């Protein structure tokens, strides 16, 4: 397969599956208790300079508690997978955690608007960027999960998105068609928020999985934050519900409301008012420093952040909103 065309973006991670195999060969397969505090998990497994990926979909089942902790601990110079990264990107930008990004979707919060803080950071020239698309990054994770150096796809061809990517176009040896090759993406460390996990890391996700099944398999180190710990007996009662097996997992952190202020399907809806407070506070960089101090740096942990924004009462309101009970109550 001869290369016809190459993107000029830099490949930010090593796509070599044998290097990844060497890493996975040494990774523990022991089914041991991996429960620890989120603070300890971030301290042990997330290092300056690492390439980081965050599970979920921006503000849906996203481990926001972990993003806060990464910022609180002052991680710097990280690589980052911007795979529909919305509120997580906003938080990590606020901490200037990363200096290089694989971009599929950043800065925006979908229908909510654009993050002024993330935009300032991305327009500052401090961040090296390589362009991709959502499916490109999903396919790159899939290639890594397969243990192969790339997968071919048919998107991106003919565009500037390709030109600024680190992909390559080849001629298909079977059909002669031009194909985009998506290089495998093996993150150094990832965090995925799940509904339920046991102490070993066997995890259950309800609802859409986005790219998390491949991400869990592609990443070298994996931190699971979970709404609830459940027993191993419960996991074994119905193994068809397990989407992430224990041997992929390095740490299990029980973080109730760990996706707040994002949406956790079947648990709580997003806190749109608080997400708007973020966007508003970011307009003035000085005021935003105060906002960050209050909401991240001066909070001991996620529980304190939750208390700051209405505690159990607010969480119950968001639960009602998730299940559309608020509509019945208001008769609209």
């Amino acid at each position, binding site marked *: 397969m001869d290369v016809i065309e190459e993107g000029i973006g830099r490949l930010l991670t090593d796509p070599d599956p044998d290097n990844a195999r060497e890493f996975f060969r040494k990774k523990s397969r022991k089914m041991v208790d991996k429960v620890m505090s989120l603070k300890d998990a971030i301290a042990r497994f997330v290092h300056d300079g690492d390439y980081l990926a965050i599970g979920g979909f921006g503000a849906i089942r996203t481990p926001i508690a972990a993003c806060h902790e990464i910022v609180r601990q002052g991680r710097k110079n990280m690589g980052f997978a911007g795979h*529909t990264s919305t509120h997580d990107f906003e938080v990590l930008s606020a901490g200037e955690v990363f200096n290089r990004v694989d971009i*599929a979707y950043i800065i925006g919060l979908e229908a909510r608007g654009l993050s002024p803080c993330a935009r300032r950071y991305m327009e500052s020239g401090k961040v090296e960027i390589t*362009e991709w*698309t959502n499916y490109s990054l999903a*396919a790159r994770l899939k290639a890594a999960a397969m243990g192969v150096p790339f997968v071919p796809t*048919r*998107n991106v061809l003919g*565009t500037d998105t390709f030109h600024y990517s680190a992909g390559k176009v080849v001629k298909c040896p079977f059909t002669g068609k031009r194909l985009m090759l998506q290089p495998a993406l093996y993150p150094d460390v990832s965090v995925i928020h799940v509904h339920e996990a046991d102490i070993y890391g066997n995890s259950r996700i309800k609802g*859409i999985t986005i790219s998390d099944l491949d991400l869990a398999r592609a990443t070298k180190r994996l931190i699971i934050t979970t709404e609830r710990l459940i027993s191993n007996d419960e996991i074994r009662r119905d193994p068809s519900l397990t989407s992430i097996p224990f041997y992929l997992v390095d740490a299990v952190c029980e973080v109730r409301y760990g996706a707040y202020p994002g949406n956790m399907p079947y648990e709580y809806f997003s806190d749109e008012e608080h997400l708007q407070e973020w966007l508003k506070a970011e307009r003035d960089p000085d005021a935003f420093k105060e906002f960050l101090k209050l909401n991240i740096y001066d909070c001991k942990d996620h529980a304190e952040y939750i208390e700051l924004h209405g505690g159990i009462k607010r969480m119950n309101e968001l639960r009602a909103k998730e299940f559309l009970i608020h509509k019945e109550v208001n008769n609209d």
Partner: protein
Amino acid sequence: MTNYNVMEMMITVAARELEDGATVGVGTGAPCAAAMLAQKTGSPNLVIMFEAGGVSPLLPEMPISVGDSRTFYKAVMASGMCDIMETCCRGFVDYTFLGGAQIDMYGNLNSTRIGPDHQRPKVRFPGSGGANDFASFCWRMMVITPQDKRRFVEKVDFITTPGWLEGGDSRAKSGLPLGAGPYKIITNMGVMDFEPETKRMRVVSINPGYSFKDIQDNCGFELLKAPKMAETKPPTDKELSILRNEVDPYRYIIGR
């Protein structure tokens, strides 16, 4: 004549394009409103798909994100990104709606940046998201956007998402799936499609109260005229009533 606003007009025109039994990949905002309106008018069996994994939900209200709980509320399946995009790539998805900061005469879209320096852009936008993927794979790509000279430009600063690329057969030569591409551009002033040979944008329908000149004056490149330009049919009372009372009662989209 019934009173309606620009957004209501565009959503209604878009909804009429979606025939019963078709599949559509949508984002939030106007496209989602159009798909919901189509389901409640002539196309109850329209299958809505969201890139994060939601398949055929019974949308209880307008989603805020293409992955939020509403996008798989009472859905037939809660899947993932690869499954949805690969379903599109296999040729199973008929329509998609996209947007961008800029569009050119071939329907190429820019949602990445303004300015020449890629590493230090004058204005940075979110990037492709799933737009490039949907536009590459879905059979017919449509755009709902205001008619504005700053949006309809001779040359986009960055081709994030493929239209007909450089026109003619350039899209087919690029390796993108054959037969898929931009189909209709729906604006507040009219509807455009693409001339079959050159793939250049042309006006097919003009909204009540506007002329071809109005559309051309608000477009940064020369528009072609379809052999027969029609007047766009405004929203009916029934369409407006469903849109206002059932699709977007809080006027999130139609109030913009």
